[in-house]
């Protein structure tokens, strides 16, 4: 936490106008060069292209790219800082390990050129955490898809860049590896104070890792802001898995239950219970994601139910999709908004109406969580 505040609040300033074949990449954004920013958008929307522009591998027809005080690209003044001077780590969608080097030598390559202006990640820990210990002597041609991605990740982190660009770095990993690597990655980036820009198709990953999210569509910025706000917005439809749509909620820790491994938090005067987040002190503020599909509605407070989180809410809006079976409800709990996805049949059977006071049932096991930097 404290670390998150320590650096000067640099920004990565982007003003880009570039044509690549049929794609017109046209956007402006001021991305905080701190924490993780996710770039999220459908296939072909220009995510990789944007990263390549930032890294300096391609030049925009017109545009400005600045990190803090340093200008990287400025077409008006014909400035284009060479890629290797940008200290811009990059994890490529296709791995790009050096095929003439072993895994070990790939890491050594990065080590020899790492930024020495501040401490980098602990390499031994990196090798262990990414499960590379047995691969070190291997030629890169013999690695599996997932192994390639893990080595690429290690290599980029060892280089200790001033900013790290990650292009779907975990797409070839199984859920279990991801579950191991994600927390480690978050921790390392935070610890070494490396801001990152992260392209992913997984809302889970975005929610877990990122502080801010840039929504890209067809080369244009569709939305940009704190991940909480973005994920809440309805625009996710058509980009994210429907299953993943939902609301981000800020909560404050009120207590821990060590025996049952639970943490209690307060959301707008109500209490929610979630799987323990042991390391966080009481009164810390955290962010929760509540998926619409994990929220059920009851017209009166139910008894004898395994669902423990029951919040009194007001029904603010009902969106029925007549083409499908589902309806989406917008719920308010004080200032906080929640979403619920029901069948239209249920809306009809329960005779739900706007303005009605109902209960939102939230299965406690369905939380994602991430500590906010603020």
């Amino acid at each position, binding site marked *: 936490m404290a670390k998150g505040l320590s650096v000067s609040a640099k920004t990565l300033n982007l003003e880009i106008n570039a044509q690549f074949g049929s794609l017109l990449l046209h956007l402006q954004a001021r991305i905080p060069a701190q924490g993780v920013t996710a770039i999220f958008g459908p296939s072909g929307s220009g995510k990789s292209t944007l990263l390549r522009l930032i*890294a300096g591998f391609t030049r925009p027809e017109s545009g400005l790219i600045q990190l803090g005080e340093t200008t990287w690209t400025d077409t008006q003044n014909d400035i284009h800082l*060479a890629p290797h001077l940008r200290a811009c*780590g990059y994890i*490529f969608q296709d791995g*790009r390990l*050096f095929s003439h080097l072993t895994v070990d030598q790939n890491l050594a390559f*990065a080590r020899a050129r790492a930024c020495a202006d501040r401490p980098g990640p602990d390499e031994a820990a990196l090798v262990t955490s990414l499960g590379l210990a047995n691969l070190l002597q291997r*030629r890169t041609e013999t690695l599996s898809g997932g192994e390639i991605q893990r080595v690429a990740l290690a290599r980029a982190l060892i280089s200790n*860049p001033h900013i790290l660009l990650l292009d779907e770095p975990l797409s070839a990993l199984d859920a279990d590896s991801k579950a191991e690597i994600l927390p480690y990655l978050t921790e390392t980036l935070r610890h070494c104070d490396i801001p990152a820009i992260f392209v992913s198709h997984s809302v889970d990953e975005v929610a877990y890792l990122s502080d801010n999210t840039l929504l890209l569509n067809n080369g244009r910025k569709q939305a940009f802001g704190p991940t909480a706000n973005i994920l809440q917005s309805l625009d996710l439809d058509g980009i994210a898995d429907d299953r993943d749509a939902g609301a981000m909620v800020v909560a404050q820790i009120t207590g821990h239950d060590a025996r049952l491994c639970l943490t209690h938090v307060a959301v707008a005067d109500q209490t929610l219970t979630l799987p323990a987040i042991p390391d966080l002190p009481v009164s810390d503020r955290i962010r929760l994601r509540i998926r619409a599909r994990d929220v059920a509605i009851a017209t009166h407070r139910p008894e004898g139910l395994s669902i423990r989180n029951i919040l009194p809410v007001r029904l603010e809006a009902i969106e029925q999709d007549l083409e499908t079976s589902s309806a989406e409800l917008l719920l308010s709990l004080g200032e906080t908004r929640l979403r619920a996805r029901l069948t239209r049949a249920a809306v009809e059977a329960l005779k739900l109406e706007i303005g009605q006071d109902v209960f939102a049932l939230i299965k406690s096991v369905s939380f994602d969580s991430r500590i906010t930097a603020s």
Partner: protein
Amino acid sequence: MIDPGPLWLTLKLASLVTMILLVVGTPLAWWLAMTQSRIKPVIEALTALPLVLPPTVLGFYLLLVMSPNSPLGALWVTMTGTTLTFSFTGLVIASVFYSLPFMVQPLQTTFQSIGKAPLEAAASLRASPFDTFMTVVIPLSRRGFLTAGVLSFAHTIGEFGVVLMVGGNIPDQTRVISIAIYEHVETLNYAQAHILSAGLIAFSFAVLVAVYSINGKGSVRVG
């Protein structure tokens, strides 16, 4: 029975020329592989041109250019006090010029086949272009360097028209083995010619087999 002088001189010349070509040809090939310049085809054509002229004729023109009557030759004489022709230095320069295509062309092909991906990866790890070239491009181009090196070296050994013209056939200075064999053939000493040729071939063959064997090691490629 056989004078070792010409053999020794030949090896010295071929090694030196190959080394100089590595130094000169590598950046040129790299530039050609990377540039988007409009004049690229012109430069490419120029690097291939020394091949088109017969060696003796090329030697003839080099004689004209390097003669003390020419500005270049005169400058050389002023600077060093000796003429460029009839010296080992002159031989080296002429051979470098003549063998240039054998170095540049295969290297350029190899460099182009590497593509941009490894270069970008290296730049993202803060390797400067020169650093990248030394630590990524060169190792990835091993086979190309081998081909270029073998072609240049072997060609310099076998080359002889240019050398004959520019060198003046001075024993221990510019009399290389190819000239020696040639003389034996001319003077109908076929037995001597056979011996020298067989020796040259056996020696070259051994060197080449060794080079290719070493190169084959450890380059197993798995899809």
